[in-house]
């Protein structure tokens, strides 16, 4: 119980700090934001590249710009929100969250996006 409370406090703190930092600073203009290791090593974009800039844009209400940086990251936010709803709060969602096609299609979309963004853009 205590461990759970500590985890929740840690999570709230992390999210709070992250929201503040990503609202105040633009990752495109400041060098202290962590860089993608995959991109540093290969020069190619990973499926998550651009999500820091996308979050910054979203926090300033610039949805179109955010979609331009990384549409996958933008689409992932509501999905993650739904997946994190505890089962006991919304039992009807259980089937959606546990369905094999959901995780399967996410895998296909992520990998397809990884390949396509490097080929097309």
């Amino acid at each position: 119980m205590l461990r759970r409370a500590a985890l929740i406090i840690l999570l709230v703190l992390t999210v709070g700090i992250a929201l503040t930092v990503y609202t105040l600073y633009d990752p495109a203009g400041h060098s202290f934001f962590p860089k993608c290791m995959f991109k540093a090593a290969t020069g190619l974009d990973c499926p998550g590249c651009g999500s820091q800039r996308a979050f910054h844009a979203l926090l300033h209400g610039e949805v179109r710009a955010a979609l331009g940086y990384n549409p996958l990251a933008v689409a992932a936010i509501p999905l993650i929100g739904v997946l994190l709803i505890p089962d006991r709060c919304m039992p009807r969602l259980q089937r959606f969250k546990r369905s094999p096609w959901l995780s399967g299609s996410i895998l296909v979309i992520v990998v397809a996006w990884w390949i396509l963004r490097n080929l097309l853009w």
Partner: protein
Amino acid sequence: MVYYVILNGTQQGPFSVDQICAMGITAETPVWCEGMADWTPAGQVADFATRLNNGFQQPGQGWQQPNPGYQQPAPGFAPGQNFGGDVPPCPPNYLAWAIIVTILCCLPFGIVAIVKSSSVNNAYAMGDYARAYRESQSAKNWCIWGAVTGVVISVFYVGAMACTGMFAALGSM
């Protein structure tokens, strides 16, 4: 073998073991049959003790045959795999965390976690509950490793940038 029983303060009987069990006795209910020195709690009488230990302890409920598939898994099934009729809950697939790790930590770890997470659902759908549990643990571990690696590298990077920035500022003074 017929027994007498004391229920609600009154002696009743003779009844068969089945009949007495159906009356809703507990391990403390006194029973007696010919040959016994005195009234004895049912829990200490062999004929009743085995029944009571099999989950027959709810007063007021009739004697129920235990689910035959429950105690003896059908031959050919590995232990923990599929106990006919007794379906365990689906283990968590950690899909949300797998996506977070994939997008934020920029690591192949997240992709592996999504693969594992999808195996959890597939294994569970096929009734292979032991494998579903193993894949669930595996998905959790990949999420943790991905998150830890991502956080450690980010902290190092931010620290390194802060140091270079400081030296640059000192140098320009």
